[in-house]
């Protein structure tokens, strides 16, 4: 009786994990259940055969090409983001995503690049929404053309994303600010505290300082928090911070909410040996100066928003959205509340990786020791 079984069914059954007894009973055709089980196994086997070629176990897909619209395409901060999107695309067998937009936060250029991507029938869009109104229409246009859109790195303002994007992948800027505020409250009991911000009002940094202010207020501690504009270039920021610190000898805490100001804080604290006076300090992002300062102890912490994930996850989410026919909606994902302190800064300094944008090489970065306390 067994030898009358079609070889295809035989093969299909091999894919179904069954105890030997069940398998024998199935092959001898005993019972209705066995027939349906055989059928489903057959279907599964056939569908697997016809769809081989996709990434992993996935059905095969066209080589989708996604488009990333960025506000500062040549800024080193976004190098890891580009590696992230490329790595995700390679993992999923997709075309290398396009990286475009503006080199200078020129919103007009970004809008044009978005419109062009829609004309080009891009398979999916990831946009850094650095302006509250400008992207509303382009995103609507893309969505009506059936192109899924997510935002990354910047997402309008805290109360209004400014577009109908499906999801946001990036730092929750306001929350990251409140986390900063909580750290400030935890490390300073009373007195003067200053927060430096490069360009007040910019949608990708202002929410952080607002969040910090709120957290300090809610703590009820008698901290005198002052917001100071430090300037648009690293040089300006350093001079401003240096001058402010010299003019305010009673500062108990010095913080910053952008990469340049954070570096300036670190350098100023080191210059005047303020750690010896017990001044608390910290900031955002992982430029090399900042990391060095954390290692030498002249900066208490910096907050990493993991730019690599801001490239990797949008590709993954857009892929799943398309693969599932829209059933898997891109979730809002907060990539950024990783505090880097003296305890966990070592790997950032000792290894050059794609994850930090410091190397183009693909590599397995080893680690050892307990994981507790690194977040």
């Amino acid at each position: 009786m067994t030898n009358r079984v079609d070889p295809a069914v035989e093969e299909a059954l091999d894919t179904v994990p069954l105890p030997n007894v069940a398998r024998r009973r199935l092959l001898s055709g005993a019972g209705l259940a066995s027939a349906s089980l055989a059928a489903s196994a057959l279907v599964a086997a056939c569908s697997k055969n016809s769809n081989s070629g996709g990434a992993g176990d996935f059905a095969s897909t066209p080589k989708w090409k996604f488009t990333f619209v960025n506000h500062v395409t040549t800024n080193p901060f976004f190098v890891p983001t580009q590696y992230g999107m490329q790595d995700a695309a390679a993992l999923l067998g997709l075309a290398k995503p396009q990286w475009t937009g503006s080199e200078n936060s020129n919103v007009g250029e970004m809008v044009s690049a978005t419109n062009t991507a829609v004309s080009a029938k891009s398979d999916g869009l990831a946009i850094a929404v650095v302006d509250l109104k400008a992207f509303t229409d382009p995103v609507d246009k893309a969505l009506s053309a059936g192109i899924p859109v997510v935002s990354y790195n910047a997402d309008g303002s805290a109360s209004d994303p400014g577009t109908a994007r499906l999801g946001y992948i990036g730092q929750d800027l306001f929350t990251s600010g409140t986390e900063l505020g909580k750290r400030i409250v935890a490390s300073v009991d009373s007195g003067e505290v200053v927060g430096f911000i490069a360009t007040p009002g910019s949608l990708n940094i202002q929410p952080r300082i607002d969040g910090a202010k709120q957290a300090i207020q809610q703590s009820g501690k008698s901290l005198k928090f002052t917001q100071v504009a430090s300037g648009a270039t690293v040089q300006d920021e350093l001079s401003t911070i240096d001058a402010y610190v010299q003019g305010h000898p009673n500062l108990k805490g010095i913080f910053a909410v952008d990469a340049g100001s954070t570096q300036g804080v670190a350098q100023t604290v080191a210059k005047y040996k303020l750690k010896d006076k017990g001044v608390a300090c910290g900031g955002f992002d992982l430029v090399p100066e900042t990391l060095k300062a954390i290692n030498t102890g002249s900066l208490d912490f910096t907050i990493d928003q993991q730019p690599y994930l801001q490239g990797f996850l949008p590709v993954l989410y857009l892929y799943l959205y398309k693969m599932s026919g829209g059933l898997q909606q891109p979730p809002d994902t907060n990539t950024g509340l990783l505090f880097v302190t003296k305890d966990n800064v070592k790997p950032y300094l000792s290894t050059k990786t794609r994850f930090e944008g410091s190397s183009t090489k693909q590599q397995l970065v080893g680690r050892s020791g307990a994981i507790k306390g690194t977040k």
Partner: protein
Amino acid sequence: VSSAAPTGEDLGAPPRRGGNPLLTVLLRRQEASVVVVAVALIIYFEVVSDFLAPGNVVTISQYVAAPTIVAIGEVLLLVSGQIDLSVGSVFVLAPFLMHYAIDFYGVPAIPAIVLALLVCGVIGLVNGFVTVVLEVPSFITTLGMLFAIQGFTLTTSHAYPAEIPAKAAGLATVLGHGDWSELVWALALVLIFQVVLSYTRWGLHTVAVGGNPVGAREAGIRSGRILMGNFVLASVLGGFAGVLEAFRVNTISPPTGDQTLMFTAISAAVIGGTALAGGSGTIIGALLGAVVLGVLKDGFNLIGLNAYTFDLILGLAILLAMISNVRLDKLRKAGRR
């Protein structure tokens, strides 16, 4: 070389006389060589992608319109032997002025826009005054103005983007937000100013002042007035382009130190055959130059070039387009002799 349509292969062809009429036109008209370059690029992008799809043509028109309007003013200045580097900063300032007038001083929308453009005109007048009366080279005058105005905009706007005032929202469709409105404005202005440059006394004096300053003065042309007037026109056109772009993008963006628009406009003028040294140039040529640049930008984005390679290829493409343009120009001049 075949005597068929002017394709890229004809670029190196020796000048022919009385043969193919198309080739004759190509050799006689100043702007014809830019048209050839533009058409060749459009054909290329249409072959490799869906370049001429209706949606994309709108996008191309938006790449072209603002630089064209700014380039009109630059052509007038370049022809009269001057340059305006501050026009990019004026471009950013104008929509903010409109926003300040409407939202802070309660001025109605249209007068507010007129007011903003008037202020731009005053900036042009200052450029002209410093250049003509105080005799500072316009390159330096307008470079100083570039930073001064950028600083003014940054300070007054707190570097914070502003929304299009609600009172002005009704004008949006006409003033840049409608699919074709920016292009219509650009084409109308090109037409008007080409007529001004070619057929009016103002235009002829502009060419004379740039081509031969001493001779023009001796012939009784009030060159100071011509120059100041052209500075004013360049600033007002720059401001107007800024207002249109603000409506198109639906936001008023603070300056970011980005002078791309100014360089694009000057490049468009030069690609279109305007001499940097003054004395010759056409507005239509600048439009065609802007089309070449717009087609390149949109096309490279469309075929999916990445930002890093984009700059590299765009730079090489501009060089290549310009080399073909200059070579064709030489042929044209040889053919005329």
